[in-house]
């Protein structure tokens, strides 16, 4: 291909210079590529902005409508200020789905996989970039929600502080729970390759499954529910110990196993199936 430039120079078109630097595809390169992809879509900007607004806004709203002369037993001011996390998981989870299914729907996936023919680095890089971005945006949001919520609650002398045992853990945990939900969406998207199917599966796991389990006899229901992704993952946002829930960190760890399983199955499939 490196023939003499005489013939090439004679051609008026293209005015495209040669590019003779040859570099291998590296994971670092794929990470940079996925970061460019993530930040250059409007859906990312909108979904993550919506998540931040929901975390902070809903927390402040719920805190401000809380009325009561005295602190009732079982009153958890930290959990109240983090209520927005429950709504924000919709935005983050759906974005996770769209990051992958959007590529399948538009045909972009063929470009992505042709550029990285080993394929798996695309999935890992996508997951890593999305997880870091989600944590980096949601953690300041949960901190803000906590501070704002407590300042509202403290007007009624119901507030608490980050120094209170378990409060900082809950604030950090809320952001990490959202990251797990985002990754679950991404994993389901990669597994099912279809937006409607993956969003349904995500909502099924998060919301429908707990309702279904709720119809079981009381003891079973209680035993099973704490292992489901939402109950397991949000245990960490409760400062007051809940005897029916898993421990904060073991619950969050279990919650991360769901996306890990989805991503593992998706990876297996990505290697084998036609793009």
């Amino acid at each position, binding site marked *: 291909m490196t023939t003499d430039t005489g013939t090439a120079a004679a051609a008026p078109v293209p005015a495209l210079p040669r590019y003779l630097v040859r570099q291998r595809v590296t994971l670092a390169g794929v990470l940079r590529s996925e970061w460019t992809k993530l930040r250059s879509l409007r859906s990312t900007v909108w979904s993550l902005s919506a998540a931040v607004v929901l975390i902070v806004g809903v927390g402040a709203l719920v805190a401000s409508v809380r009325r009561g002369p005295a602190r009732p037993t079982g009153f958890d001011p930290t959990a109240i200020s983090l209520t927005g996390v429950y709504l924000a998981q919709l935005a983050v989870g759906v974005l996770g789905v769209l990051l992958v299914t959007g590529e399948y729907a538009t045909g972009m996936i063929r*470009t992505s996989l042709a550029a990285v023919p080993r394929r798996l680095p695309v999935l890992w890089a996508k997951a890593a970039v999305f997880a870091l971005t989600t944590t980096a945006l949601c953690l300041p949001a949960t901190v803000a929600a906590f501070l704002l919520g407590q300042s509202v609650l403290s007007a009624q002398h119901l507030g608490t502080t980050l120094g209170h045992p378990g409060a900082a853990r809950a604030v950090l945990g809320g952001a990490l729970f959202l990251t797990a939900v985002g990754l679950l969406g991404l994993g389901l998207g990669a597994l099912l390759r279809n937006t409607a199917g993956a969003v349904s599966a995500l909502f099924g796991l998060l919301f429908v499954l707990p309702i279904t389990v709720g119809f079981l006899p009381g003891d079973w229901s209680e035993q099973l529910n704490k292992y489901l992704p939402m109950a397991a993952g949000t245990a960490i946002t409760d400062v007051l110990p809940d005897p029916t829930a898993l421990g904060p960190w073991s619950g969050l760890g279990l919650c991360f196993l769901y996306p890990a399983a989805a991503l593992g199955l998706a990876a297996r499939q990505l290697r084998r199936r036609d793009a």
Partner: protein
Amino acid sequence: MIEVRGLTKHYGDRVAVDDLSFTVRPGMVTGFLGPNGAGKSTTMRLILGLDAPTRGSVTVNGKPYREHSAPLHEVGAMLEARSVHTGRSAYHHLLALAQTSGIRRSRVDEVIDAVGLRAVARRRAGGFSLGMGQRLGIAAALLGDPRTVILDEPVNGLDPEGIRWIRTLLQSLAAEGRTVFVSSHLMSEMALTAQHLVVIGRGRLIADTGMQEFLARDARPVVRVRSTGPDALAALLRSPGVAVERAEGGALQVSGLTTDQIGRVAGEAGLVLLELTAQQASLEEVFMELTQDAVEYRASATTGAAR
């Protein structure tokens, strides 16, 4: 260099590509022709490792595509134009692609300029016209200055100026010693651009030949003749194995005789010849004839199997 050996691809019961073997050589433009559904796009996906073959193998520059550590420098491909996220700008699409292989940002700007997308590079690709989408696909294919270029229907949706641009581009890429493999359903365009042809029908190889040899395959060359006495000449020429048809302007289309033979017959009868032209079949005609056979063969084979 692309080497396809016994390539076969089934999608469920459907055979998309059936025992295909051919070689695409560097230094020339190879056209890839076939009717819709012949398996052209499937073959291109198999070449790029996007789909796995049921049987057979394909290598690009000596290795299966998936084994290349710097694939964008080996093969630049434009698959169907819709291989771009519609929500992303042309610039970011190319940048994300470049970053996988550590290609510099300045190269992204170079390819954008070379395909003439500078003015719209920051606009969402979803709003692009068909022609702009094709230019974006070509920009992506040229990003890594690849040894092999594969383009699926690159002139689709381009205006005449764009078509001329592609033609010059493909020929200069080939002149630089690259392997250039281009599919098209526009036979006339291929006749002007390609030096070699690979023709498939229903997933099977129909021809793998030079352009000139392909055109010479026409079994019944036609001679166009105009004379002062067309009726008399037609009567003299008609014989077993010779077909004479009336054309517009008093001309005759004669098949089964050479120009020499017709000229002698007219001279002996004292008829003045105004025109005597051996007409080469167009690429389109040869193509239709060949692929027609493939379709018929296939149809009868299926009926036989159904019984």
